[in-house]
């Protein structure tokens, strides 16, 4: 009986406690920089698409929500012909970002992309591509990769060692 009165008193003391509710639409919650929200495709500092259509994101995706088709331009650069993310399936796990070798696919601190129609949650490449570089402002895959593309041979990029002749390494 006394303990019941004690608990009533304890609850009454909560009258003067601070309320923990974050009143969301009026009051935005703090989102850390590494928050995993809406997925975007970034561009390199030159403004070209970073994505090389390697399919690693599609392979890494545990819910299989990424679909793309690789193609090549006249310089031999690979890029996705289409790139489609079905956000009604996406679980925002960030594995695509981890798998991406060119920092092209990135997750952003934005989670407010609700829709009234399910079909509108399927984002095409033009919806996903942004004009900026995202989290890695100076990175350009083709300047560091050991890959020949139009106008640049292997080993000619900045920070890039000339290619090793594997046959000269033989014992």
């Amino acid at each position: 009986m006394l303990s019941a009165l004690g608990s009533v008193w304890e609850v009454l003391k909560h009258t003067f406690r601070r309320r923990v509710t974050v009143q969301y639409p009026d009051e935005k919650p703090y989102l850390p920089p590494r928050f995993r929200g809406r997925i975007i495709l970034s561009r390199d500092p030159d403004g070209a698409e970073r994505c090389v259509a390697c399919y690693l994101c599609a392979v890494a995706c545990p819910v299989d929500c990424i679909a793309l088709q690789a193609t090549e331009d006249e310089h031999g650069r690979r890029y996705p012909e289409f790139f489609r993310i079905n956000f009604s399936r996406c679980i925002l796990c960030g594995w695509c970002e981890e798998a991406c070798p060119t920092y092209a696919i990135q997750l952003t601190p934005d989670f407010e992309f609700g829709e009234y129609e399910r079909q509108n949650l399927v984002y095409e490449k033009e919806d996903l591509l942004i004009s900026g570089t995202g989290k890695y402002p100076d990175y350009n895959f083709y300047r560091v990769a050991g890959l020949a593309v139009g106008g640049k041979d292997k080993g000619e990029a900045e920070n890039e060692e000339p290619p090793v002749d594997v046959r000269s390494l033989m014992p």
Partner: protein
Amino acid sequence: MSSVLLSLLNVFGILIAVIALAAGLTFAERRLLALWQDRYGPNRVGPFGLLQVVADMIKLLTKEDWVPPLADRPVFVVAPTVLIVTILLSFAIVPVAPGIGVADLNVGLLFFLAMSSMGVYSLVLGGWSSNSKYSLLGGLRAAAQMFSYEVFMGLSLLGVVLLAGSFSLLDIVVAQTGLWYCVPQVIGLAIFVIAGLAETHRLPFDLPEADGELVAGYHSEYSGMKFAMFYVGEYLGIILISALIVTFFFGGWNGPFLPPIVWFLLKTFLFIGGFILVRASLPRPRYDQLMALGWKVLFPLALLNLIATGGITLALAR
């Protein structure tokens, strides 16, 4: 002619005020529970969420009024009205302020006890006619609970009757002009509060409803306005019991400086808040625990209180 008009004004004034208050309580309770759980509660509709009541009402009115196929249809329909009617009838005897009150029965207290016993029929019949196991269990518990609290509820009030020398609520209030009965009848007060919690089927004694175990107990199968009637009935019960606690033990409208009606409402709201606070803090006992508490502790205590009060009154009267 004017006296008829006055009493009609009293009847409808109290009826409308009480129902409006009960509707408002659905909102007030949610806000208060939220306050004590460090939340905000409904605060979106209108200023401070005050229009939540209207929104709820629109929702309940537009819901499908469904009767389960195997239910006992007439009983199913009548059951919720029994609860509302018995509780509203009980309000007839509550003296709000001098001149405000529907009827001053000379058996007012007994009338209240009779009506509160009738109210249980609503739960039992509703539980039975739903033809659902959870509803039946809820109705069963309502009956079991009623047996265990009605007895000591009546006995706890007899101390007040002894002191006031009358069953009329008006006389009881007038008799408390000097000293409120919460002082000499403190045991009676405690027992009546516990019985009141059980009477209104509120947590911690909401065994007939018991959301955690019985879906929603006796009103599991109810929807739309029939459900709303059970719901409003519960809040009407809270208002009634709070008003009666004030009338029996806290001097009704008596109090310094402020006008009587303000005192009455102030005290009543305090106890309504208390009811909600108790709901926010205490867990629900098993129903055999409630019955054991009722029969083994509170019933003898109420009897002892009655005997002691009677003895002292007799000794002082000599």
